[in-house]
């Protein structure tokens, strides 16, 4: 790579953001070089400034931010001082951007191909018919189904993974020298993620395009990047070749990032044969209106155990949870709690039945009322179920805050917006604990969090289980999480239970083909993992390979 000429050179880049009437530094001097055809991975927690640096590489800052120093030299032009006309000529043509959420970034009112051809026509690169033909070729190279036809659909008619590939195709439309990928696979399922990763890697190689790949997932960046740069709160931690970085990280922070995936609970003794399950789901089928979602699912959750329910989005995991809580009364089947049948609709359950089963939500932002103080949020179930008031209630809330490892004096009078994502999730846990339940449903509780923070939450949940004897139903699509916390695993697909059993058995062959696909799709830290996997599956078209296996 080093023989190629330098395409982008960022020197001592400083960016400031405006808050409370003053400019605060966001990026304190970032420097890197990017050669032609090279892929630079940029990783860090949320708030580390990855996206801000990525956008600044195009000479752009978000509203309320400004570049306060340094230079961004792209092919001899300093984008920091360049005028609008110069930048207009570069952006879209020689520098392109792929956003995190393709679904939110495509204009829903126009066909894909019309959005694709807009920038080649605008920049005078090619005519409408030429760029349409080119779009179809790119769709083919990116392994989109029906490349001749798919461009004429509207964004909502295409799946998330396909949209993300269509957006990559769009970024390629002018054959740019540099593409910035801002978390392009974060919102996707593991099985879809592989398809997108492979397509992006191929096309970047084919056209010798340089790329900046922004992500918080180490395993993903290991597959994609030639070099990796680690950021922490606007500071550079370190930068090195991918293999060097993975095998021999220098800084403590980088080592801690690498260590996250090592959290593992010790195995528990198998469940006694005659023990009564806390929750027993028996032959449940359910539908939204007339659309059937669950087909005859059954599983048990035993006291003090964690049952992980895994599957892609749309597989019915969350619907199963809604049936257990009674939000969606099942059409057929039974929900038993401690051996007794529960009324199907939550409105018919009594207060004690409601108290015993609590829920923790994926998005802590929408799960906590933004207008209520932490003390009120946790205090309400204490008051509602336990009848505690005034000083007693406050004391109980303080105990709960200590349990979730937050300082009561600091946090009890804050609003949710004054807390970080991980802290909010802890408040969600405290609210569930306040009801003193036996059983808690954790719906994707860690998937919106950074890895370090997520690990903290998992450890907390594990500790609480040990001390309070709780049972968890742990809904997730992340198999790494399953490995670290589950005792038993239920694999779901299209509303059916495909396979279930103790974790040890589940992670050892032989698998059900679908479980196998899920397991093998989880990115590993090995930089050759993707290449090997593709060779192993042995087909160019990964999408076909995936469906052929099932």
């Amino acid at each position: 790579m080093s023989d190629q000429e330098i395409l982008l050179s960022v020197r001592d880049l400083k960016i400031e953001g405006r808050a409370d009437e003053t400019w605060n530094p966001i990026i304190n001097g970032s420097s890197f070089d990017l050669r032609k055809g090279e892929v630079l991975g940029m990783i860090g927690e949320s708030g580390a400034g990855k996206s801000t640096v990525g956008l600044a590489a195009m000479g752009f800052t978000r509203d309320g931010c400004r570049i306060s120093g340094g230079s961004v030299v792209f092919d001899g032009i300093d984008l920091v001082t360049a005028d609008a006309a110069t930048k207009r000529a570069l952006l879209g043509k020689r520098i392109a951007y792929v956003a995190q959420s393709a679904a939110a970034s495509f204009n829903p009112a126009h066909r894909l191909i019309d959005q694709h051809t807009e920038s080649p026509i605008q920049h005078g690169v090619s005519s409408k018919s030429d760029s349409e033909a080119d779009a179809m070729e790119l769709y083919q190279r990116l392994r989109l189904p029906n490349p001749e036809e798919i461009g004429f659909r509207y964004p909502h008619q295409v799946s998330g993974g396909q949209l993300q590939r269509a957006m990559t195709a769009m970024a390629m439309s002018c054959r740019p020298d540099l593409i910035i990928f801002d978390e392009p696979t974060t919102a996707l399922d593991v099985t879809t993620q592989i398809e997108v990763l492979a397509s992006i890697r191929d096309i970047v190689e084919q056209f010798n395009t340089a790329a900046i790949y922004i992500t918080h997932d180490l395993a993903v960046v290991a597959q994609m990047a030639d070099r990796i740069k680690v950021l922490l709160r606007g500071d550079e931690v370190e930068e090195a070749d991918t293999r060097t970085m993975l095998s021999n990280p220098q800084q403590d922070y980088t080592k801690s990032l690498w260590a996250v995936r090592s959290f593992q609970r010790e195995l528990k003794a198998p469940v006694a044969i005659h023990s009564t399950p806390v929750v027993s789901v028996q032959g449940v089928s359910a539908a939204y209106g007339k659309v059937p979602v669950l087909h005859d699912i059954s599983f048990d959750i035993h006291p003090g155990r964690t049952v992980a329910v895994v599957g892609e989005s749309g597989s019915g995991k969350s619907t199963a949870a809604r049936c257990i809580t009674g939000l969606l009364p099942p059409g057929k089947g039974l929900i038993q709690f401690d051996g007794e049948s529960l009324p199907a609709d939550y409105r018919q359950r009594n207060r004690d039945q409601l108290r015993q089963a609590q829920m923790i939500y994926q998005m802590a932002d929408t799960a906590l009322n933004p207008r209520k103080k932490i003390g009120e949020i946790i205090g309400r179930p204490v008051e509602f179920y336990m009848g505690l008031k005034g000083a007693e209630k406050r004391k109980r809330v303080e105990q709960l805050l200590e349990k979730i490892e937050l300082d009561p004096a600091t946090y009890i009078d804050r609003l949710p917006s004054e807390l970080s994502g991980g802290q909010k999730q802890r408040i969600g846990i405290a609210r569930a604990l306040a009801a003193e339940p036996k059983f808690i449903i954790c719906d994707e509780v860690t998937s919106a969090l950074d890895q370090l923070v997520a690990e903290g939450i998992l450890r907390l949940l594990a500790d609480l289980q040990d001390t309070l004897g709780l049972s968890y139903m742990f809904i997730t699509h992340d198999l790494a999480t399953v490995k670290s916390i589950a005792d038993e695993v239920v694999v779901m697909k299209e509303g059916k239970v495909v396979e279930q059993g103790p974790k040890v058995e589940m992670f050892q062959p032989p698998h059900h083909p679908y479980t196998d696909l899920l397991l093998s799709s989880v990115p590993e830290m090995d930089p050759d993992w993707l290449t090997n996997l593709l060779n192993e599956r042995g087909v160019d078209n990964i999408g076909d390979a995936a469906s052929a296996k099932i």
Partner: protein
Amino acid sequence: MTFLFQVAAYVFALGGAAFLFRLIGRNITDNAPYFRDMSAGVAIGFAIGAFAIFWVLYTYLVNFSGWWSRDPASNKYFFFYVAIHGLIIFAIVAYAFRWLGRNIGTEATKKLFRQMPATASFGILVIFIYAIVSIFAGFIAPYGQEEVLKTANLAPGADPAHLLGTDQIGRDILSRLIYGGQNTVGIAFATTCLAFLIGITGGFLAAIKGGWIDQILSRSVDALMAIPQLIFALLLMTIATAWAGNNGLLVTLYMILIIAVLDSTRVFRLSRAVGLNIVVMDYIEAAKLRGETLPYLVFKEILPNAYAPLLAEFGLRFCFVFLTIASLSFLGIGIQPPLADWGTMVKDLSTFLSYAAFLPVQATLPLMAAGAIALLTVGVNFVVDWMLQRTSGLKE
């Protein structure tokens, strides 16, 4: 032809000025991005603005003849002066008020005033003054609103005992303006509160319950909204007046009810839409699963999150209600005489408008009542705009 030439010359001069302005700006600031990337439209806008300011200054200075001149020669510019002086006074007062707010009070209110644009502090000041004047009308007004004094048609300033003069039957106009504020603003406020009570209750109920309750409420609201509001109000008021007979208080009460119900349809629509967005949140689901009752859900979980849009709507709705009452009074079926009210005052004093050429000062009298309405409307909207901006800014 000469006219065309004139227009062409102006356009040419404007374009030239704009071009020069941009060129000079670029040279002086050493090609700062602001001037470098300035489009022609923006430059022309600057030129037009400069021209307008120049024209105002020129007209003002050349024709100035005293602060409150009755000189017939300057009649042509009488209202121009009133406008300019009013603007200057209001601007000074607004800045003084903001300065006070920034330097007096607790840390929180100081910060609030620091972040506030001048327009918003002006709006707050206007509302504040109106509130004081309306509440203490009985103490402030020199005469009663129904009191008939000796001299009719007294010009403003002619008698120090009647600062704004008297109307056709000899009532003190200043006192009637002050009482008019109490009546009009008070009734409008009561009506808006009632409209919100009805609208919010119905809207949130429809949002939470959905199904047939939502259908019934929404379709009835649609039916009410399908009839033009003012005409419908007129119709209902005619019926109400017939029922009430000569009882002025009863007519006012009917008016409050009628306008409140008609305006609550808009509040219903908004609170239903806002409510629907909040009802799908996980914290509502958590509260439902906890076993909370409907009133708790509405008042403790949903309402606090709907304050911002509802408060903004309250400001706007208040203006509309206020204007509807003034319109009805102007048409003679709103607030009944002898109660003073701004809408009626505009109507009663409007004959003076015909004499604007000879008696410019008297001609301002109907405009004072109309101006009182306009000023409050503008003030409330300034505050509402600011609140909307603040809440949308917080949401990011």
